């Protein structure tokens, strides 16, 4: 039985649940469970999409202010 992959996965999952309390965010729990896997594995994919979209939206909304913000941040190191 110890060689069984499903059994090993179940044991692994049991340890995970035992280590951390389960997440419960009320009404948002289904949404939470939908979003979180995207953050757990290869989050850089969602990061790329979100950051590019956010930057373009910010440019459309702020225009020249965004250019000034970029300059300001570049002085910020």
């Amino acid at each position: 039985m110890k060689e069984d992959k499903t059994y090993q996965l179940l044991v692994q999952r049991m340890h995970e649940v035992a280590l951390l309390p389960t997440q419960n965010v009320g009404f948002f729990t289904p949404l939470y469970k939908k979003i979180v896997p995207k953050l757990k594995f290869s989050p850089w994919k969602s990061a790329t999409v979100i950051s590019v979209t956010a930057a373009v939206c910010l440019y459309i909304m702020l225009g020249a202010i965004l250019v000034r913000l970029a300059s300001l941040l570049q002085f910020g190191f």
Partner: protein
Amino acid sequence: MADFLIKTLRQFFLFGRSAAGCLNNPYITYRKIALEKNNLWPTAFITLFSLAYFEFTGLIRTGFGNPIFLTVKFNSLVLTASIGFIGCVSLFYLLGKLIKKTGSFKTLTVLWSYSLLPTLVWFFVTSCLYLILPPPRTMSILGKIYSVAYIAFSISLLYWKIILYYLTMRFGLKIEIGRIILISVGFVAYLGLFAIISYRLGVFRIPFI
């Protein structure tokens, strides 16, 4: 001596693997790191990278011309960043105690040091870009494209940082999202105070956290 060198190399290789894991599989990697309770090697490597960055930024800002000023600048950067780091870990630990969840201080230290990776990348890249394409940006097409790209890059690193912060709380203190939000209120207050003080002292314009 040879043993120590081999051990350091091995630990550095493992650190590199974990650092890549923080980018690709942060949840699994943080889980693994949290279980390796007594390994402070990653903190040592990240401290070395941070020191290298402070030396680099000191050189960019003050140049080789004034070694005394360079030393003062380096020391002030190191001191302020150390206070920021130790302050953050202590705050997490104390707030964890306050909500009756005591995490290990060592585990919190290691997890939080990994969260310095996006910070280091942002500061290093910004410093290099400052040298290659010095600000201010213009309103030309190239200036606008550069600004949008730079802001997108900054947002993506902030996103990464937030994920690592969340995982530090989750695995360091073993708490659920409600309590993480509670602790975050205290953390944001501390961050604001640290940012104002380090800005007023002229050490960091953007807090190194």
